[in-house]
């Protein structure tokens, strides 16, 4: 869909047409987003909130319009529930350290075995300082969360459940609403890493039932260096700010300071205003395509990829078999070809994939491999590109075969 709107997709790489299968790392940007970012810099560039002049007022309007547009996209009742950050990692750090004062020694934080390091390491660090214990929900052999284990891990000491909506390696879509309801019965807060879901499948903040939700603009066809932490108002009120400085204060004396209202309380310093000015254009694109159609398209690409990869003898594909039970990505391991060799050979054929542990070392340990190769999709991915991927994998296997 809309392939012609993404200028980089016209590129050739190593003499071949670019086949971009790394949208889980970052999605490509449509011309309209690139133009909107440039337009901000050409016509409006100013810092936000404090200026009295026309440009400052325009910049502030654009920045706040991004907050409002993002709230509308996710079905969030009020834009004050949307904190603008630098990205998912910053959002999750804010969630973890913002809650630190509420965590007592012996309290428990539940993570899962399939988390990205960004939804593990902040919790480890916070737990260490608070004297809390981090426990991990295991996965089953077919790459789903073990929900029986989850329910038995939940207890009265569980303060936070931190989980991903869609695994960036397995593609697994976790039953967040069901898990959030169970967590809430034990009085725990639920923090969701939605980096791989927003813009790729329908995400309704209210329906998910979580307390805090983090994602990045750049995986939704928007700019890098821009992300969001969306929260229920009473949960955002519970968070302490973790960055201090300009913009986030109410009153500062030479001895102390009081904090601004949410969400400004969490937005110290100069934000990525150009990115924020452009992000609504990316959301407009997804809405124009319709998220349901984007999702249907990614499922059909999943189906082609799973089907074609299954035809390669000995290739191990991870995650759910059902293309409709996974986000738009497929990770695999070829016993004959190390993932770094695979990615290098694919690149020579113009096929861009990601090889490595994808910032999920505990998951790879569970899978019994150091690294995997991941092909990930977007609304612009075509079935022909899957053919190019599979042909290039075939070349690599022939090269490495004995």
């Amino acid at each position: 869909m809309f392939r012609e709107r993404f200028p980089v997709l016209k590129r050739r790489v190593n003499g071949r047409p670019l086949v971009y299968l790394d949208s889980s790392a970052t999605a490509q940007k449509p011309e309209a987003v690139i133009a909107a970012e440039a337009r901000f810099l050409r016509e409006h560039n100013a810092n936000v909130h404090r200026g009295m002049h026309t440009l400052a007022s325009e910049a502030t309007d654009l920045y706040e319009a991004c907050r409002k547009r993002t709230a509308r996209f996710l079905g969030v009742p009020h834009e004050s529930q949307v904190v603008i950050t630098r990205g998912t990692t910053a959002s999750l750090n804010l969630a973890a350290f913002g809650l630190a004062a509420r965590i007592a020694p012996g309290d428990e934080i539940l993570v899962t075995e399939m988390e990205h390091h960004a939804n593990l390491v902040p919790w480890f660090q916070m737990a260490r300082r608070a004297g809390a214990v981090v426990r991990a929900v295991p996965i089953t052999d077919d790459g789903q969360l073990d929900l029986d284990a989850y329910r038995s891990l939940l207890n009265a000491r569980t303060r936070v459940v931190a989980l991903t909506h869609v695994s960036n390696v397995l593609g697994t879509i976790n039953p967040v609403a069901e898990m959030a309801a169970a967590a809430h019965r034990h009085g725990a807060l639920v923090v969701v890493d939605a980096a791989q879901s927003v813009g790729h499948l329908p995400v309704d903040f209210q329906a998910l039932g979580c307390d805090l939700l983090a994602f990045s603009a750049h995986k939704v066809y928007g700019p890098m260096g821009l992300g969001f932490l969306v929260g229920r108002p009473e949960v955002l009120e519970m968070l302490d700010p973790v960055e201090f400085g300009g913009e986030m204060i109410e009153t500062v004396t030479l001895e102390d300071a009081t904090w601004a209202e949410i969400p400004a309380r969490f937005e110290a310093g100069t934000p990525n205003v150009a990115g924020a000015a452009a992000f609504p254009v990316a959301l407009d694109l997804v809405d124009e395509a319709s998220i349901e159609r984007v999702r249907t398209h990614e499922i059909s690409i999943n189906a082609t990829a799973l089907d074609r990869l299954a035809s390669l003898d000995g290739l191990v594909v991870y995650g759910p078999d059902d293309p409709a039970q996974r986000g738009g990505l497929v990770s695999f391991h070829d016993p004959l070809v190390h993932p770094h060799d695979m990615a290098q050979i694919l690149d020579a054929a113009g096929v861009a994939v990601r090889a490595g542990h994808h910032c999920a070392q505990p998951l790879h340990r569970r899978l019994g491999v150091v690294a995997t190769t991941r092909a990930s999709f977007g609304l612009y991915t075509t079935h022909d590109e899957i053919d190019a991927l599979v042909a290039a994998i075939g070349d690599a296997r022939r090269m490495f075969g004995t």
Partner: protein
Amino acid sequence: MMDELYREVILDHHRSPRGSAPLACCDAEASGKNPSCGDDVTLQLKYDAERIVGVSVATQGCAIATASGSILAELVVGRTSDQVRVLAEAFRAVMHSDAGELADELDPGDLEVLTGVRKFPVRVKCALLPWITLLEAVASAEQGRAPSETTTEA
């Protein structure tokens, strides 16, 4: 272009790595690891007086790292610590330069082929890992100390 990186000599070393069996007893051992890609090398040396008489290189990693370890196993037996140090340093210098080659008097064997990897900067650390691990093993043998784990990721 891939033919330059994955030369037949390199693929052959990758398919059947030399010196991959562990030594029954050894005089020095070191390990090297590149965390970002997961490459992992365990290297053992056996000495008879000054000369290396046995080597084992166990590489878990990509074809470049495995081939490099295999070539290393072919080259170090019969050399002294000083000689392998000169060879390893020469290889490192060549891999970090745009031109130049390994001197013939180093008797570099298949290592000359591996210098082609420098055209692919992100893979240089794969080729170097066994050799940096070798330097660590040699140093620990000479100083009679336990080796520390090494890496070619800065």
